């Protein structure tokens, strides 16, 4: 929207801040405030301390952070690989068949994640694939949940890809596999990194399916936050939440740096 007069510009900013601050910024600021507090009975938190952070960055919490990072990285890489593969395969299909494939991949997002968690639990609780009680069941559930996003953003990028590049490569004597590695995937790289970032962020915050599946030795950070707040340790939970937020944003920042270097146009 193009706003010309100075007054109108101020008005638009005011409306934006009015909506943005309470809805998006304030809750996050409150968590940040709470993470430093020992009491919060007035308007502002009191008894400022860094003790929560000390406990949030060692022992059980540190373990959970590593668990979350490993789960998210593994799940998003798996999701990216399968999602991209499916998107590339889908692009070669006829329109009718591609629609079926797209629908199948959206399914895990369409159904509640609790249902996905339960179905993964039931499916992998008996031989031949007995994964219940291992970290893999968590990683698999996360992969199932985030592959939809990887598939969706990569197939959108593939439809935008000008076929002239592939055709130029083919006319120069490049076989389809060579075209894929040297032309299509490099051109898709910006979308691939974006998809990876999205998958990572979603996996870092996943709670509902994880709750049903996690074994005692593989507790991701969101579970820890839930447990802390559940037993009333709100301020400790807040500190852990800030750590989760910071870790996620840090990784996303790094990914976005890679992404800027990968976008040529």
């Amino acid at each position: 929207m193009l706003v010309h007069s100075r007054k109108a510009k101020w008005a638009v900013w005011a409306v934006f801040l009015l909506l943005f601050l309470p809805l998006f910024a304030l809750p996050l600021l409150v968590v940040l405030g709470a993470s430093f507090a020992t009491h919060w009975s007035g308007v502002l938190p009191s008894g400022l301390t860094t003790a929560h952070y000390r406990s949030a960055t060692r022992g059980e919490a540190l373990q959970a952070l590593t668990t979350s990072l490993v789960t998210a990285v593994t799940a998003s890489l798996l999701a990216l690989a399968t999602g991209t593969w499916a998107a590339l395969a889908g692009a070669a299909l006829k329109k009718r068949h591609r629609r079926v494939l797209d629908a199948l991949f959206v399914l895990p997002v369409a159904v509640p994640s609790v249902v996905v968690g339960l179905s993964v639990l039931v499916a992998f609780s008996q031989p031949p694939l007995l994964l219940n009680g291992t970290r893999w069941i968590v990683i698999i559930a996360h992969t199932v949940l985030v592959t939809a996003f990887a598939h969706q953003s990569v197939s959108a990028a593939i439809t935008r890809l000008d076929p002239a590049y592939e055709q130029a490569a083919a006319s120069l004597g490049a076989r389809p596999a060579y075209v894929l590695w040297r032309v299509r995937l490099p051109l898709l790289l910006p979308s691939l990194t974006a998809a990876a970032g999205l998958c990572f962020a979603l996996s870092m915050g996943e709670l509902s399916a994880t709750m049903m599946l996690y074994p005692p030795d593989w507790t991701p950070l969101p579970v820890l936050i839930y447990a802390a707040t559940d037993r009333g340790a709100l301020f400790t939970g807040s500190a852990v939440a800030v750590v989760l937020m910071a870790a996620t944003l840090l990784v996303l920042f790094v990914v976005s740096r890679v992404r800027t270097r990968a976008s040529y146009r």
Partner: protein
Amino acid sequence: MGIRFDSVTVAYDGNVVLDSLDLTVEPGEVMALLGPSGSGKTTALRAVAGFVRPASGRVFLGDRDVTDLPPYRRGIGMVVQQYALFPHLRVDENVAFGLRARKTPKGEIRGRVAEALEMTGMAAYARRFPRELSGGQQQRVAIARALAIRPDVLLLDEPLSALDAQLRSGMLAELARLHRELPDVSMLYVTHDQVEALTLADRIAVMDAAKLRACGTPRQLYRAPTDEFTASFVGGANLVPVTVGTGGVFFAGTEVKVDTDGVIPGAWATLCVRPHLVGLGEGPNQFIGTVTEIQWRGATHRLYVNVDGHTVMADLRELKNPPGLGDSVSLHFASEDAVLLPAGVSHG
């Protein structure tokens, strides 16, 4: 190596976009496929490249039937309108792409890339990315990339359409020079621009509505077109309906002396005269009309004159005292400048 279309038909969902094309491009020849958009000319080129599969008919490169070969096994250089340079590769990497894909020995690649860039005058830009080049420079790189694999056949799909007019005439001269330097490379040049076709081609194939209308040297098609479409598309033409007499035709009550061999007296036909061959004032084959439009084009004036309900165009060297709208003027043309065509759409 030549190209041969053997009654090639291409259809998309039942729509015939190329109707049983028979055409042979001789080795080392530049053949222009000239026609308006939707005439099937690009489809013909893509059938040679292997991006469309003919519904029937065969495509030959030399003696080899390539109809069933995938594009990467055809060994064809291709240059397209929007360049299609790989944006993530530098200029020299773009040019080396085809050589790498064909597993050319490493030691040879460097020399071949340098040679191709030298030939197109882009050697100084080897380490640039495509986005850092102008449109004309990008098209030179695209040509260098296609030439680096030393193809026997070069396909050019409207290669100059994205460039502005001034750049286009420069590139046209460059392409003509490249053709002289590579006399063995056959070129199939798709264009809708008759100037490009007349300048560059050894022969022109005129396409319209999925069909080949005419094929011949630029001079043949220009001097002696054989149908109305070709006459008006190549060079522009006055097409007027006439009745055939013996030893001449009748137009607007005047008898025009033209060669009427092979035409039955009394039949309808179309008289074709190029606008720049029509003169103002008294002369042989004279007729009178009313000026309906005058366009000043710098070196020339174009007059639109209504003669007996038909518009006749005349391109005249800039007039000192041009006639006004509605003035009655006499036009004439030499008998040898007129061509008689079979009656067609101009008869309404």
